[in-house]
């Protein structure tokens, strides 16, 4: 029964047009970026960096390198927006539309309903990230050849690495596992707010504000020694996969913190939902 309920939650989620806004926006952004890469001086700058470090330019200006470069702004800007939009909708929109009263006139416990919806949100986040990764690679391949992976993220993680195609693809895959955890966390924050008596838009805005505050505080100069207390620091674990050597302790630590945060946010949301009145 739980599986059927989960399947139906996904059916509801993917039956709505607004669910696809995120997917559409990612596709547009990826193509706009590729267009900019192709016709701007970005390529020359990258060539200078590679040749200056003694790497063959032709091998590393590749679909894989471009796909990864495209991911960074999308993860910073678009992913929080769309993950929070869907997370905020999951319960709050059902309350606003009146369908929640229909569901709660049935013999299902509130906790079970919240759990099913949250898991649907997590699955959505994973699907969004897989889609994002595959489509970035697909579109990049249309404009650039296959080749090795070149990664350079100067601040704050100081990542610089070059990898052959096979290793690069494997790391690209691994980094998406951690990106999925980031997306799930963003969805969970919005979902938690949506469990309380707020409008769906308010849940989304609250979650985005929470993430923005994390970003702002983490970047304040006097907060540098406390940066590990902010989510954004742990969200960057995905890029550490490309470090040489890989700082697994940092990555695993961040994953545990994010998973713990997700569970805490879920429990807060579930408790909030348990004790609220559902009225028309």
């Amino acid at each position, binding site marked *: *029964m739980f599986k*059927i*309920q989960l399947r*139906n939650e996904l*059916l*509801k989620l993917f*039956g*709505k*047009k607004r669910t696809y806004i995120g997917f559409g926006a990612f596709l547009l952004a990826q193509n706009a970026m590729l267009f900019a890469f192709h016709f701007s001086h970005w390529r020359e700058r990258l060539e200078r960096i590679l040749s200056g470090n003694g790497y063959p330019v032709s091998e590393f200006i590749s679909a894989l390198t471009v796909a990864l470069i495209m991911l960074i702004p999308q993860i910073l800007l678009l992913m929080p927006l769309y993950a929070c939009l869907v997370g905020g909708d999951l319960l709050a929109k059902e309350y606003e*539309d*009146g*369908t929640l*009263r*229909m*569901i*709660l*006139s*049935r*013999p*299902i*416990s509130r906790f079970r*309903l919240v759990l099913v919806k949250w898991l649907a949100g997590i699955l959505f986040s994973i699907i969004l990230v897989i889609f994002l990764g595959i489509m970035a690679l697909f579109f990049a391949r249309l404009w650039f050849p296959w080749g090795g992976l070149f990664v350079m993220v100067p601040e704050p993680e100081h990542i610089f690495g070059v990898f052959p195609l096979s290793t690069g693809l494997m790391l690209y895959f691994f980094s998406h596992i951690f990106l999925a955890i980031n997306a799930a966390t963003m969805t969970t924050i919005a979902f938690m707010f949506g469990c309380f008596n707020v409008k769906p838009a308010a849940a989304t805005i609250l979650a985005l504000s929470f993430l923005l505050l994390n970003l702002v505080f983490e970047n304040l100069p006097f907060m540098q020694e406390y940066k590990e207390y902010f989510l954004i620091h742990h969200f960057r674990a995905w890029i550490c996969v490309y470090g040489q050597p890989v700082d697994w302790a940092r990555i695993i630590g961040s994953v545990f913190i994010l998973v713990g945060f997700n569970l805490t946010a879920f429990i807060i949301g579930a408790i909030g939902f348990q*004790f609220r*009145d*559902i*009225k*028309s």
Partner: protein
Amino acid sequence: METLIELKNVSKKFGDNVAVQHVSFTVRRGEIFGLLGHNGAGKSTIIGMMLGQVWADSGEIRLFNYNIYSQRENALKKVGAIFETPAFYDYLSGWKNLEILSCYSAPTPPDRIKQVIDWVGLTGREHSKVKTYSHGMRTRLALAQALLPGPELLILDEPGEGLDPEGIAEMRHTIFRLHRELGLTIFLSSHLLNEVEQLCSRIVVIKNGSLIYDGELSEIKSRNRWYRLKVSNFQEAVGLLKGKGLISSFKDSEILPPENVNPPAIVQCLVENKIEVYEFYKIEESLESFYLYLMKKDTLTSGSGKLDSSGDSYQNTL
């Protein structure tokens, strides 16, 4: 008879506003039970509490003898509910909506869904998206989702809201069918007094969150002791009847016999005195006039649900 719904001294506040206070009543198996009250009286809050959607501040609510809060799943197992504005996933078909909503109760085979769709008369449109449905079709779909788990108790919150006269008549007919063919106990909250009067066997009336009447509808109807009298000469007739002590009061074409008078004696007296009698019958009290009286009266009825005023004083108050 088995009690399906039991509210014991239930109260609820939203902030400083008292929504429901010390409400108690029971609904027995087989009844069509009406919940009446003005806007904001607390009817929807009561239904919300009965379904465990709103937390009561105090008191106890039991459905099928299970506590709605601590034994929610057992309490709601045999309950179907329809709300005033049926809400669905408009972007999905009626069939998909039924599949989704039924999965929160118990596994429902497609045959059962088809059977219920047939019963409510939605066959042929079940695979169309709900956004293409008329208000009447949405109401039928709401009924279908409520019937899917095979309920024994159906809770209807303002089911006639937004329906045209044809739709209201259809709804009434459907409620009767549900009661007769499926043997459902029906709890109905409605503003449509005429519908409640035709449908319900028992009612409770709520005013400002408090219960002000609980009793059989037949009691209300039989409360009135006035008779309609249509004769060849009404003035002459009442003069005669008053002189013989057969009436204690009269107005327009109505008369009120004293309690010890046998009404056929009135007709006999008129006929014997060569006054032609065209009509003579007891006027049934309408629910509307009774309801309006209650709203004005603002006094609690006795525990048994009987009013403390007599029929004639009640009529005179009106």
